[in-house]
């Protein structure tokens, strides 16, 4: 499926703003893989599908307030997704769950990866995922927005309400920590 990009996306967003179902479906299909992957990492695989639907429902309800800015349409939607994930964690916290879903999911990943430490990781991707799971929450979110959501540094800065330079610096530090972990893993 072709991606809706650039001026095409602007036209599709305008059509969606007018209530065009086909335009909305095109945007949804374009965003769905990244959005679901991002939310799987945020709220866990069991709740990701619902979180995607909630994100899109909020986007539908708030499209009239959307103005094209540095984050673009994708950044705007992922900003909504972050709030959906945060709401999800707050509901879990109200239920007095001591371990938030995202943290639990990350912890489970860390346990899985730790169990695999003794194995010969001939799969570079598995090694990268194992190292990534050991990063701090803020580092993981930033890198997820960059590589999973596919947002640019400027878009991530808009989503996280930070300056692009700060995002680039934080990204560089996160990658440096990841590199160190990978070296320690190989050692």
């Amino acid at each position, binding site marked *: 499926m072709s991606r809706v990009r650039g001026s095409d996306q602007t036209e599709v967003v305008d059509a969606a703003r007018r209530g065009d179902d086909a335009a909305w479906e095109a945007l949804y299909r374009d965003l769905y893989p990244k959005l679901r992957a991002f939310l799987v990492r945020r709220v866990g695989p069991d709740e990701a599908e619902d979180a995607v*639907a909630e994100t899109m429902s909020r986007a539908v309800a708030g499209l009239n307030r959307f103005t094209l800015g540095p984050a673009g349409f994708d950044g705007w939607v992922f900003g909504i997704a972050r709030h959906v994930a945060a709401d999800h964690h707050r509901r879990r916290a109200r239920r007095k769950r001591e371990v938030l879903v995202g943290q639990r999911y990350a912890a489970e990943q860390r346990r899985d990866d730790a169990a695999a430490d003794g194995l010969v990781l001939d799969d570079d991707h598995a090694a990268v995922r194992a190292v990534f799971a050991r990063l701090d929450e803020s580092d993981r979110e930033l890198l997820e927005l960059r590589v999973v959501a596919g947002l640019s540094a400027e878009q991530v800065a808009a989503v996280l309400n930070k300056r692009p330079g700060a995002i680039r610096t934080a990204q560089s530090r996160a990658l440096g920590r990841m590199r160190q972990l990978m070296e320690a893993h*190989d050692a």
Partner: protein
Amino acid sequence: MPRPGLPAADDELLELLAQALDPGALEPTPEGLAALHAALHPDDARYDPAAVFVLRAPAGRPVRWHRIVAAAAAVVLVAVLVLVFGRSQPSSLTTTQLASDRLSQALKAHSPAAVTARDVQALASSYAQLSPGQKSALGPRPVQILVQACSDLAAGAPAEAPPACRALPPPPGGSSTETSAPGGPGGRPGSGAAGPGTSAKGAGTSATAPRSPTPTTVPATRGGAPAGGSGPAGVTPTSSGGTGSPPTGAGARPVGSSGGTGTPASGRRGSAGPGPTSGSGPTSRTGQPSGTGQPSGTG
């Protein structure tokens, strides 16, 4: 020191990370698309709202909207039925009341024939449609009237008895298996004054006086009285006593009164016979001698 192949540049490491975290080509699920359309058309029933995840049961299962809608429709249907039949109840009640009144009037007028099988059927049908509360509000009177009417109809023309009569409770004593309570103690012995007795009519008959023996002729010193004749039979029409014979019948004692007693009859004095003989009149059985013949006088 990075191992060989480990990306040294951030962009390369980002690319490696992107590949490692790549979820692959994913397509939206039908539920997700349905949720999108439901969000776009929240008031349009063509879109299945069951896929809207935000409305989920606490257990995490999707809310079964079709079940909720079906339950709501059932509630509405029941409400409509209650309204419709609730409004029809007063007419049934009025019909029952009218039929009850008609039957009641007919029974009071002692003209069961005026109660037709149609009346009974109408009353029974209307009464059967009433709720237990309405039946209790009417009281037992309609049922009593109906049972009475059915009994009358069955006695007159059993074939005309409406089928509704068979659904009624049996009349009292018809097939009841209840046993009657033991009878109470008898009343006190009666007391009262004796009633006035009436004496029976006396039926005494006077005996025929035997003929006087032949009189002996005695020299009359003077003329004797004529021989006594036979006394007339005493006939006493009442208890006042017949002549010559007392009443023999005792008065009836309806309440114990004694009969009257006859008064002694007294024979008439015989007239003097012309004959030379004299005689004595017969005596009544209990009466006084009927008389003594006077000397016939001188012969």
